[in-house]
């Protein structure tokens, strides 16, 4: 069975209503005739023997890398860094691909007599993972074996005793990363490449770096010049990370990169209609949709959120490549694009999108307005190569409840960002120059990042910068079904129905606009020609 590619449907009178995500829930929406709907490709056929594929990759690395088993020698220190809880989304059904790969690496290490081994979650400035999340990503066998010996660590970008300054790139960018990882005899990085932004030199240069280092590419200027940041060849974010990555290698840090790709099999059996094309819904799909959307609508927020965040995706491994970072990543990108890319002819005046319950930064938590903004204008908007799906001066319509609700444990600085910063300005450059430093150096945020489970104080700023290119490009943003006050705080307009939203958009883009709907998740990326 081969999977069908993604495609663009043009709505006509026979088109059934289209599924549209709306936070913890979804509904059916009718689009005007002529609207284009961008459907993702179906999930690719997975690798039949994942363990075998991992073994194969580790022993047949790409680039000038030696097979992993020959790199492992008795008495060495091995550090294995891995992507954190921001990937994949939703969390995948056990066993997580990280567990699969790390078990294989550890077995080889044991066979070679390597017993000085550390695992490090490459958090960058993300929150620390909880025990449950670590157990899920690594499996309890690894967790229980390493935790008591303090061998399972989480990167701490604010721990001066465990950071090393490796100097600067030729462009003067400070390269400061995790000392334990940098000074290991071998650093193995285990990645999940869910979207094309992930991986490559970004794994180590961002995932294991300090604020001092990260701020060289996580800033407004870089993000405005990343068009898109999902396309590394046109992304200043990646250029900077690549300079840093090469500098890290030049300083003698020995990295063995392992990248994995997953198919887009996003929803389990009970929710499989969410991945299907509406006209192919069976009677059962239809009744599941009705029952589930009704009950989600009737549930209190915390309950519907809880139901949604318990979803474990049946993602399957489609590729695993190991060895030298750049060559590994080139293969990975081919794989990601082959799964997600759909060709679209021409840009659109209005781009509509329904935002789901989860983005990279609210796993097991609340999607607050700043994360809504970032998921829409950072992630979804940037899911393109070539040119944006929506034309310059066009409008994005976002469907999401967009409530001003925050998780005080995970997102404490977001609350202050919402109250103190967005009440003053929504302009990324002004936000950066006036407020970033005070948030980034606030001792309380640093404390909560290091000792609690909080995102770093500066993180909401990055969310805002993520959308800077879109803000620059767009003529307007309308939130459909969102809380009007919170929507206004973001600098956007509110609409209560799709028809109202389109009417409002017309005042910006003119009459008779072209409309394109991004039918995602599952993930889809547009190659606009």
């Amino acid at each position, binding site marked *: 069975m081969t999977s069908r590619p993604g495609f663009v449907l043009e709505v006509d009178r026979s088109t059934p209503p289209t599924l549209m995500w709306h936070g913890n829930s979804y509904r059916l929406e009718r689009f005007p005739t002529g609207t284009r709907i961008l459907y993702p490709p179906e999930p690719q056929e997975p690798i039949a023997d994942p363990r075998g594929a991992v073994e194969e990759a580790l022993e047949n690395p790409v680039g000038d890398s030696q097979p992993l088993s020959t790199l492992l020698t008795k008495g060495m220190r091995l550090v294995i860094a891995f992507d954190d809880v921001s990937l994949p989304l939703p969390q995948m059904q056990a066993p997580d691909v990280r567990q699969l790969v790390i078990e294989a690496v550890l077995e080889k290490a044991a066979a070679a007599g390597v017993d000085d081994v550390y695992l490090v979650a490459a958090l960058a400035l993300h929150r620390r993972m909880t025990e449950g999340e670590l157990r899920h990503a690594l499996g309890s066998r690894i967790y229980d074996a390493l935790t008591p010996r303090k061998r399972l660590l989480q990167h701490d970008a604010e721990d001066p005793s465990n950071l090393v300054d490796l100097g600067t790139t030729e462009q003067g960018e400070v390269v400061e990363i995790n000392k334990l990882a940098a000074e290991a005899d071998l650093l193995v990085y285990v990645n999940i490449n869910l979207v094309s932004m992930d991986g490559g030199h970004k794994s180590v240069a961002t995932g294991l770096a300090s604020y001092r280092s990260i701020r060289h590419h996580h800033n407004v200027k870089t993000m405005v010049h990343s068009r898109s940041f999902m396309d590394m060849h046109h992304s200043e974010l990646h250029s900077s990370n690549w300079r840093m990555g090469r500098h890290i290698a030049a300083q003698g840090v020995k990295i063995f990169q392992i990248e994995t790709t997953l198919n887009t099999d996003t929803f389990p059996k009970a929710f499989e209609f969410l991945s299907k094309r509406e006209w192919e819904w069976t009677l059962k799909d239809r009744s599941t949709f009705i029952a589930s959307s009704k009950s989600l609508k009737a549930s209190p927020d915390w309950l519907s959120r809880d139901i949604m965040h318990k979803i474990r995706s049946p993602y399957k491994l489609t590729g695993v490549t190991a060895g030298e970072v750049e060559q590994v990543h080139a293969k990975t990108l081919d794989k990601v694009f082959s799964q997600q890319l759909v060709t679209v002819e021409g840009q659109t005046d209005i781009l509509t999108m329904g935002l789901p319950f989860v983005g990279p930064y609210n796993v097991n938590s609340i999607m607050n307005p700043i994360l809504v903004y970032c998921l829409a204008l950072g992630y979804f908007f940037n899911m393109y190569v070539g040119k944006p799906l929506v034309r310059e001066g066009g409008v994005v319509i976002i469907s999401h409840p967009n409530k001003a609700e925050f998780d005080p444990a995970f997102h404490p600085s977001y*609350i*202050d960002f919402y*109250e*103190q910063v967005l009440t003053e300005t929504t302009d990324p450059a002004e936000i950066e120059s006036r407020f970033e430093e005070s948030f980034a150096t*606030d*001792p*309380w945020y640093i*404390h909560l990042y290091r000792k609690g489970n909080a995102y770093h104080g500066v993180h909401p700023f990055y969310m805002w910068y993520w959308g800077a290119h879109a803000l620059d490009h767009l003529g307007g943003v309308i939130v459909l079904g969102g809380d009007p006050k919170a929507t206004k705080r973001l600098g956007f307009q509110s609409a209560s129905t799709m028809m109202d939203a389109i009417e409002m958009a017309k005042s910006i883009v003119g009459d008779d606009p072209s409309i394109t709907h991004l039918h995602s998740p599952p993930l889809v990326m547009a190659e606009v020609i």
Partner: protein
Amino acid sequence: MRSLVVEHNIRRMVSAKLLADTSVKRSLQWGPLALKEVGAPKAPTSQWLRVQPRLSGICGSDLATVLASTTRYFEPLVSFPFTPGHEVVGVATKDQTRVVLEAALTCKPRGLRPCRYCSLGQEQLCESVAVGDVKQGIQIGYCSSTGGGWSQELVAHHSQLWPVKDSLSDEDAVLIEPFACALHAVATAKLQKHAVVAVVGAGSVGLLTVAAIKYLSPHVNLSVVAKHPIQRDSALKLGANEVIREEELGRSARRNTRAFRSGDWLSSGYDVVFDCVGSSTSLSSSIKSAKPGGQVVAVGMPSYTGIDLTPLWHREINLRGTYAYGTESFSKKTIEHLDLSEQASLIDNGDTVSIRTFDLAILAMERLKLGWMVTHGFPLENYSQAIEKAAHAGSQDAIKVVFDLRKTKSTSKGTNDL
């Protein structure tokens, strides 16, 4: 002459109190205040002058009185029937000079030798409220001997009258009395140069406190809790560094002082919080957001409140009241910064310099010209409308509401045409 009069009528006071929460209009209708034709008050001694009010403000304590929502604490300190109104700019009939009224009825106007507080210049703490030449009453506006501002004529001791320059409008001048209260509240807090300060509430008391803070200590970092758009805009215009909502106070205190927080507990917080609301919630959040050992100053008149004083105890917060005005003392450097060194009325104490609060308020007003805060004026006849407006203030785009007595029959006016 026409005068608004408050009579001692328990039944009416109870009615007003009961109705005040539901309808200001009905509370007034059944309450103790009435518009009457009365004889002009007689001067108690030759030291007293007749004054015809031009503008007369409505303040929070006036509202509490006429709506009977105050405690009965003040009852023995007033004499019935009285005419309210202690924020007054008027004309002294003797020589037609324009004057503002320092309303407090302390030893001097009462014709007494100064008590221990008055002799120290702390007139706001005066011991004499029921003796001397006039009946009991802490201020003109609560005393049956003097009349009050909400009428066509009152009497005042010559020491209570301060002439105002032509450069001040009536609107500027009518704010001098409440501004003196705000200056007293701020001056006694002794703010450090770069103190981190909050003002809770942005009604007229709150905004005048903001103005007083930025006048006396322009370098402090000032957060203001404001509810309504006109209040937010005014606070920013007066120099607030940020305007926040009440529920943000604790978080703002944490941000501004880079404190650690655990629940409601803060490792630091504001050096001083000026509570210009006086409610249970405002006092509670003020106490929680002041730094350990910091001050909370109750500027607005509080009444019965139920608050958790655990954080006050645990964090050694100083909760302090502030009332009226007297004499303020400043360092010579401050006086220089305020550009007041040349003022003849300064009293040199060696290390420090003293100035009467009222004098300071007049001088400050000449610089600040806060008359724009007087947003609405009404004739006495429309007192019900006026008091309703004042009671709803911020939510109805009002800051200071006054009685306008400059014409016998004037009409209600908006911001611009006053």
